[in-house]
């Protein structure tokens, strides 16, 4: 049963990815991304990472993606300019992708991963994460806030510029 | 009365002058020239004293100064001179002094010219006195900077091309030397301290070489690297193509320095570094080096014959003459040839300096150097013709003048080891005689060219620069012992070391 759900989420994650990359309609691409992100959230939940799964839905789907879609719909619609990549470039890309994919698949299957058996119900993680964020990872947490602050300032600067530019 | 640390004073005194020149206001160019001249006189005096006081029988280094410089790399500030360095230092001091006088007519960017010239002076003396490989390398490279600007700013029409070509060629050689230097550093362990060393006297001791530095391939490659570096400087054919360009475009005084001193650094480097550090390879490369020397002799002479530009002619004659040095240095079966080679280094320094100064004189007046456009100048400028005649005869090796002795020594010595090469090299002398005499005829004899009939005679200042050189040429032609005395003991030691 779990395997079936797992496979469904996998397909939900991967198939729309092709749409994102290949579609020439940006709205379609954005909506496909939504499904992919949802699939990833499902995978998190299946792995027992309830907190991350929920955050994934709230932040990525609820926040970022909606913003992207708004942005897309409010600015420009219609066909994207087709990228003009020459055949040698495409070929090179395909070969490189193939090699990396093969290497990843091989290493994923061959490696002796240290696997711990999970017993019984998965535990809720939010409390543990909270402990870590205020304990071991307090300083990184604060550093991330400095990063966000500085990034915010930079973003304001760039936004201010484009407003003034009009 | 001599100061302590004589060599340091001699090396860095010009640099002090250069520093002083930077603070002279722009409107006093003569003051700058005066300072430059003043900065070259004490070193000349000290060099002369050095010459007198140098112990001719000692084989070790004299006037040694050694203080740690960079402990992390075991680099020392290490100066000292032996019989090979003394004539070179003397030549450098003399030519620097003369060249400052010869540069008196420089009126463009005076400050830069004389400051750079003095920097060049410092680095040249440094090369001849350094006994630490690292220091040698620093001075060796330091020379490139002023030279680049001196050719590039004050040179002739194609100065930019000539300057960069000079720089690129020399740098190829020196980066190879850098790699070899580091290989030697890591390949040696100073027995007293257990540290790696750049000390040339220690590196010359074959027993400090580590196992990997004993491998034939490494040694062979190291020697090749050094040899290319020095051969570019000498320059041996086929590494010579920078030389004609640099000589032709450089201002007179710089041509003098280039031909008179810089070329000697190549052969000096071989004597100071290649031979002591890799004596076995020196033997192995001897025939190759002698062959390149021969090729340079013949090729240089043939090219000189084809030139119409006086400066180019002298440039090619330099290649030919330096070929004799290389040939003489490649002989280890006797000390005659190598003595002749070092004497030739000194003699070529004086003779070529005269030649370039003389070309400078005529170029300043006529603004061309085309051999065929002159004619009958002997009538217009008899004194000038006299000086030129002396220089030409000296250059072509007329008995009684200095080059004859050195070339004869080289040929006599090398005949014992390389019969065919030596016999072929003699044709070089004939060719040299041919092109110098032919040039002489075209410039000074024959019908007077009316266009140049009223060229002024050589000035007192110009004569003053030429006279000391002329005296040396004549003196050493009759009695070469003043130089041979100096170098004999050291060279005997060198040959003994190479032969092993």
């Amino acid at each position, binding site marked *: 049963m779990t395997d079936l759900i797992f496979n469904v989420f996998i397909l939900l994650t991967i198939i729309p990815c092709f749409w994102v990359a290949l579609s020439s309609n940006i709205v379609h691409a954005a909506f496909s991304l939504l499904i992919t992100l949802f699939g990833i959230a499902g995978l998190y939940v299946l792995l027992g990472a309830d907190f991350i799964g929920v955050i994934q839905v709230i932040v990525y789907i609820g926040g970022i993606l909606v913003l992207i879609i708004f942005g897309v719909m409010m600015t420009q619609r219609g066909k994207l300019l087709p990228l003009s990549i020459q055949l040698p470039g495409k070929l090179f890309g395909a070969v490189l992708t193939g090699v990396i994919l093969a290497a990843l698949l091989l290493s994923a299957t061959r490696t002796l991963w240290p696997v711990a058996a999970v017993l019984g119900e998965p535990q809720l993680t939010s409390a543990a994460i909270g402990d870590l964020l205020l304990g*071991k990872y307090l300083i990184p947490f604060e550093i991330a806030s400095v990063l966000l602050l500085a990034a915010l300032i*930079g973003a304001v*600067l760039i936004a201010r510029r484009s407003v003034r530019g009009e | 009365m001599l100061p302590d640390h004589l060599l340091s004073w001699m090396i860095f005194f010009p640099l002090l002058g250069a520093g002083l020149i930077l603070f002279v206001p722009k409107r006093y160019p003569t003051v700058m020239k005066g300072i430059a001249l003043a900065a070259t006189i004490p070193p000349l005096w000290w060099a002369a004293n050095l010459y007198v006081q140098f112990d001719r029988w000692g084989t070790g280094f004299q006037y040694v100064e050694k203080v740690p410089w960079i402990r*992390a790399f075991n680099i020392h500030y290490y100066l000292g001179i032996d019989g090979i360095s003394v004539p070179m230092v003397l030549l450098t001091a003399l030519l620097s002094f003369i060249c400052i006088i010869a540069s008196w007519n420089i009126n463009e960017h005076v400050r830069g010219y004389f400051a750079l010239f003095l920097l060049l002076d410092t680095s040249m003396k440094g090369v001849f006195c350094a006994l630490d490989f690292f220091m040698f390398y620093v001075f060796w490279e330091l020379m490139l900077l002023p030279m680049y600007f001196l050719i590039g700013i004050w040179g002739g029409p194609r100065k930019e091309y000539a300057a960069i070509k000079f720089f690129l060629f020399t740098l190829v050689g020196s980066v190879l030397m850098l790699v070899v230097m580091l290989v030697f550093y890591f390949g040696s362990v100073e027995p007293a301290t257990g540290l790696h060393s750049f000390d040339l006297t220690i590196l010359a001791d074959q027993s400090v070489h580590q196992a990997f530095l004993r491998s034939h391939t490494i040694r062979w490659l190291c020697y090749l690297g050094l040899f290319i570096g020095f051969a570019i400087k000498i320059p041996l054919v086929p590494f010579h193509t920078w030389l004609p360009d640099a000589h032709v475009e450089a201002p007179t005084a710089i041509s003098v320095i280039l031909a008179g001193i810089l070329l000697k650094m190549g052969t000096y480097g071989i004597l100071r570094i290649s031979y002591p550090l890799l004596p076995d390879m020196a033997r192995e490369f001897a025939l190759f080096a002698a062959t390149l020397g021969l090729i340079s002799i013949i090729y240089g002479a043939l090219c000189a014959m084809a030139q119409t530009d006086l400066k180019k002619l002298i440039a090619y004659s330099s290649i030919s003459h330096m070929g004799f040095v290389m040939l003489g240095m490649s002989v280890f079966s006797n000390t005659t040839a190598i003595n002749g080679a070092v004497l030739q280094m000194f003699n070529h320094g004086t003779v070529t300096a005269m030649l370039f100064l003389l070309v400078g004189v005529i170029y300043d007046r006529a603004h061309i150097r085309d051999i065929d456009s002159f004619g009958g100048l002997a009538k217009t400028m008899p004194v000038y013709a006299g000086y030129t005649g002396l220089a030409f005869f000296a250059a072509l090796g007329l008995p009684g003048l200095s080059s004859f002795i050195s070339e004869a020594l080289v040929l006599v010595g090398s005949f014992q080891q390389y019969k065919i090469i030596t016999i072929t090299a003699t044709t070089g002398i004939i060719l040299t005689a041919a092109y110098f005499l032919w040039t002489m005829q075209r410039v000074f004899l024959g019908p007077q060219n009316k266009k140049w009939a009223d060229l002024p005679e050589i000035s007192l200042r110009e004569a003053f620069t030429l006279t000391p050189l002329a005296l040396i040429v004549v003196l050493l032609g009759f009695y070469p012992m003043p130089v041979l005395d100096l170098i004999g003991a050291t060279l005997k030691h060198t040959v003994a070391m190479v032969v092993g």
Partner: protein
Amino acid sequence: MIPENFIQSNLQGISFIGPELILTLAILLILLVGVLLPYWRHRILFTILAVAGLAGSVLPLWKLPQPAPDLTYLSNLFVWDWLTFLSKPFFAVVGVLTILLTQVTGEIDNSEYSECTILVLAVTMGMMLLVASTDLLMIYLAFETMGILSYLLVGIRARDERSGEAALKYVLYGAFTSGTMLFGFSLLFGLAGSTDLLAISQKVAFASQHPQDRLLLIVAILFFLAGLLFKTASFPFHFWCPDVYEGAPTPITAFLSVGPKAAGFVLFIRLFYPLFATGHDATIYEAVSGLDWPSILALVSAITMTLGNLAAIHQNNLKRLLAYSSIAHAGYLLMGIVSLSDLGLRSVVFYLVVYLFMNVGAFAVVAMVASAGGSEEIDSYRGLGARAPYVCVAMAIFLFSLIGLPPFAGFVGKVYLFAAVIYKKIYWLAVVAALNTVISLYYYLRIVKAMFLEKPTETIQIQVPLSSRVLLLALLVPTLGLGIYWQPLARVVSGMF
């Protein structure tokens, strides 16, 4: 319920991140001044605040205990060794020089100036954290702090399309490569079940014995390289470099070329030496068996320097030219990493210090000439030597130092790097680097030639203010001084490893 020991650990470790705290304080102060005192928005005020913050950030260092290789703090997230200790003043100097350069050249508009200083301080903080991190999570956070904020810095100049384009390119390449690196991190995390480098290194040493695990390690190494080679602008992730360097404001370019690049190299040392190398004896390391990454890097190094130097020959824009030169220098620096020895590590650090002064110096001159009425094109340097001798002599010295000619500091740096590879008997790389030096001579000399050997095509008088001259002097002194007597710095770097 937070475990007691974490509170303890955080309280004890807080003093070790004193520099970062002071920088954060300075950031907040600048922000407040900018918001609360709108009439005080003078450049000089922000400059003073920022420089004071950077200078103040190194003060706590002397109050802290002696660094030691195994002294970790904040729950093993950071390590307090000599590399950490000395990197902090290094990055503070990078920050100070950048701020001063923006101040004297006036390249950034007044309206953006306070934000610019904030971003520079924040990136500096990120770099300081990065070099101290020994935990994959912290490394990535610091890496992105440095990365994201430098994208913003590149695009900071308003009304300049080039700046925006450069920023976008930087973001795209940066996001791709750091994402790849993160994937590599996740692979190692999966293998070791920990983000702590020490724990991972034990697992890697163990896993490398098993052939079936080796592929994963190779993939991880290659993915790490993506992020690191990007930050250091090395082949094959160097394409962004010329465009970004050209488009960014010149002081920011100077900042990028020494700051994040240096941080990238320190990260190289932090990641590759503990994880994929084992200490053979005290001075030599060996690559973990079965993973011959030094050979790959040696090849990358040779290609990077050759590519950078060859491409630089054709550039007419000085910033582009210096960008390619900076690629070439990344290639030289990789030689130190490749040599897998203490000497190699020392040579990297030594070269970075030297490179800081000479490269910022070269960019400073470009910025000064551009702001004094010239341009960034090589044409506007024709005959400049006669019109602005001081600046041009300084430029010549920086360029000669970049070539690696004595008696300038760049020469000593190169000797260090050459020594490192020759020490490990990688002779071919030394010869390639030596020949590259000759190639590089050609294009650096093009600038020198334009300045001194050619006649001016225009007669604009270049006036360089006194403040710029003083800044140049401050850069010249170490460039010359370290070339003549570098024993003090040699002692410092010898003590590090």
